[in-house]
């Protein structure tokens, strides 16, 4: 830490010769491409001090003093008000209005306490405390030549006394040991995820199987084809998902589906997927192929699905291909059919991984 011999001296006391230091400093340090002008205007030194109104007028000083202590007393009032508000405005169960009052009045009391305290202290500092600026000398940040020479000497002594430069085998083996010793910690972090699972295999399959009924999200009740009216869209989960004890959200994050019914003639289906829909009802993965947000916004008129996170748009009429935005791949389609009771069922799992792209995705 640099020490200041002139600490706290007033400007009048501080030397005005400091201006000359600049030219001295410029003379010694490397200036690079800086232009050091010979006819530079000289620093005029400190301007005369201008007294404040509180320095000149005793009444103004008195007034400032009153303001400061009034603010400090006001701060006490604020703190006490906050304590009182804590008791006067309790939270009444099931009454959101009471939460609002509790929040508001405790907060206002604390804000008054803090602001009055802060403004009072700053006003004291600005209006009443000694106002003349002081000046400290700066010294170069680098250590002095003697200090640096002594530092070099210490390292040399340490080198001689330990022999670290001379005993190469000891030194190198020490470096080796220090490099290797953190490695076990890296291995330990493998335990962050289960040892017996393969993420790629998990990403390649979802809960949908042949015959799984399509169910409403979140109730889990199965959907009849006849319930799906023209133009409507449903958020869909596999039947049984709502009852899962473990992994409900993990399964849902892959298996969520959006179901839409359009006029069959409006559907432009790929020939190999002609049997994947039922009477204009199509089911697509609801998980965006960009970074995995739910593609939740369906626009009935244009048959477009919009992802609210990054605005990728998918055309349901045209096998959910991307028509705008950062996503590249179409939403995977879930092949569906109808069982004997008229409920919509999956023909199989998705035929490709759903959700965001990943390195091992084929």
């Amino acid at each position, binding site marked *: 830490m640099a020490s*200041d011999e002139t*600490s*706290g001296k007033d400007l009048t006391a501080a030397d005005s010769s400091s201006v000359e230091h600049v030219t001295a*400093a410029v003379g010694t*340090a*490397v*200036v*690079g*491409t*800086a*232009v050091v*002008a010979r*006819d*530079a205007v000289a*620093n005029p030194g400190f301007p005369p001090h201008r007294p404040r109104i509180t320095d000149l007028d005793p009444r103004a000083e008195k007034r400032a003093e009153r303001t400061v202590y009034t603010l400090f007393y006001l701060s006490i009032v604020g703190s006490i008000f906050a304590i009182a508000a804590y008791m006067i405005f*309790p939270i009444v169960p099931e*009454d959101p209005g009471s939460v609002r009052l*509790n*929040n508001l009045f*405790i907060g206002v009391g*604390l*804000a008054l*306490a*803090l*602001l009055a*305290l*802060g*403004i009072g202290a*700053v006003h004291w*500092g600005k209006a009443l405390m*000694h106002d003349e*600026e*002081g*000046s*400290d*000398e*700066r010294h170069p940040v680098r250590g002095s030549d003697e200090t640096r020479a002594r530092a070099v000497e210490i390292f040399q002594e340490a080198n001689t006394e330990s022999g670290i430069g001379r005993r190469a085998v000891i030194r190198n083996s020490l470096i080796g040991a220090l490099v290797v010793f953190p490695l076990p910690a890296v291995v330990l*972090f493998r335990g962050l*995820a*289960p040892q017996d*699972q393969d*993420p790629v295999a*998990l990403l390649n399959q979802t809960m949908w199987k042949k015959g799984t009924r399509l169910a409403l999200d979140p109730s889990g009740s199965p959907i009849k084809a006849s319930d799906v009216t023209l133009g409507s869209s449903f*958020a869909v989960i596999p039947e049984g998902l709502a009852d899962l004890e473990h*992994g409900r*959200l*993990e399964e*849902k994050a892959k298996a969520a589906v959006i179901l839409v019914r359009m006029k069959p003639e409006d559907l432009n289906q790929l020939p190999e997927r002609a049997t994947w829909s039922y009477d204009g009802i199509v089911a697509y993965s609801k998980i965006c192929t960009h*970074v995995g947000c*739910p593609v*939740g916004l369906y626009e009935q008129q244009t048959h477009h699905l919009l992802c*609210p996170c990054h*605005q990728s748009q998918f055309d349901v009429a045209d096998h959910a291909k991307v028509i*705008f*935005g*950062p996503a*590249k791949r179409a939403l995977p389609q879930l092949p569906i059919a109808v069982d004997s009771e008229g409920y919509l069922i999956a023909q199989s799992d998705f035929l490709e991984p759903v959700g965001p*792209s990943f*390195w*091992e995705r084929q």
Partner: protein
Amino acid sequence: MSTTTDMKPVATKKSGGFTGAAANYIDERTSVSTAVKELGRKIFPDHWSFLLGEVALYSFVIILLSGSFLTFFFQASMAEVQYDGSYVPLKGVEMSVAMASSLDISFDVRGGLLMRQVHHWAALLFVASIGLHMLRIYFTGAFRKPRELNWVIGFVLFILAMAEGFTGYSLPDDLLSGNGLRIIDGMVKGIPVVGTWISFLLFGGEFPGTDIVGRLYSLHILLLPAIIVALIALHLLFVVVHKHTQYPGAGRTDTNVVGYPVLPVYAAKAGGFFFIVFGVVMLMASFFTINPIWNYGPYDPSPVSAGTQPDWYIGFADGALRLVPPGLEWVWFGHTWSFNILIPLTVIGIFIATVLFYPFIEAWITGDKREHHILDRPRNAPTRTAIGAAGVTFYAGLWAAASSDIMATHFKLTMEGVIHTLQAVVILGPIFAYFITKRVCLALQKKDREIVLHGYESGRIVRLPGGEYIEVHQPVDEYERWKLVSYNNYKPLELAPNAQGKVSPVQRVRAGLSRWFFEDRIAPVGTKELEESHGDHH
């Protein structure tokens, strides 16, 4: 008894009373008088822009205070429970313990919502004030020698502040924060080779898993704050070692520091300012709702609300994801290459690396090895200021893009139109900003010269005997003039062959950059010009 009295230091004999005894007790055990002697009257210069860093420091203290309160109530568990608290609309809804305890803090702990909102508002202010503080440092050249390393420390603090923000924002496990994590998961999976496994390890299995909230909690309340506290300490230690920079002014030089001493004026002002910042945050928390998780509900991978947006400081990254042109993903060599994720990540990486290394780049270009303690007025470093303006425009474009959908719905625009416009803003905006700013800086420098040489316009119109009307120009006083003439001026590097008579390619690059920086320059007025201009002003 008498012998012990004799051994007391002489100084304490005079200062009687309890204070003197207590001070003596402590000093004999800590040598605290040395610290008071060194620091007590240390001078700090005064300027409103120096308060930005203080705001950052104080909001961090507020975050620590309010955050500690929250830890006593928050439970970082993703175990499923049925909510049974005071908020009626969510009664009976399945949610994680983290979400339920966040709701309890909001609805069942007196003052709990207030502390949550203080914490969140202070966090937003923390990142904002660091950002503004960095802009102040940049545009005034305060990063120059000897402060380059402190710039790096500050930069790391900015990154850590964003990391703190994101980890904290994810803790309540509500719908909005869950979607944020989903986006992180999707981005991580897009990283070649290791992405899938990083995601798998991060979430402790498949997304979302039951581990992430607990893990983010350790980072949020232990690891990241510990690093931040250590770096802030280092940051401030360097401020003490270097002493604070000061704006150009009469009497101020690179070898002095002019201002008020720590005790009492600076302590009163800075201490008071802490309470003012705290008070303002408290007012915001009292009156303005932030992050109403009860409106969003618990995380579920299927629903999402329109207008999904991250906290403001993550916006630039989210915007970058939105602005990437369509169709940038291919399967090569049996692997998926998601350039729609890699390009935004790379662009942001280059951007922040440029910010990080800028002080070293400029130092290399100028070759100036002097210590600089007098700040530049932004106009007096036109190229640097123009680069800064370009950077700000670029960031602002990305940031605005995070609200592309909100802009489209509010102003009845098409989504596509907004995105295409912002793509143009991000690419062309910085170029326009650069040239406009540079010209404005040069024009302001010319104006400064005018004022120095010919005085300022007094507004007084005089009719001369010949009938001519002129406006009287008043000369500026020498103190005012000093601010206008005392700046650093650099000239472009002249290429000179080395000992082998060759010009190295590195030198050519440096000379090119130097030309770019300093080709257009306005020299400060010298004494000769000043004398010649005398009697020139009407």
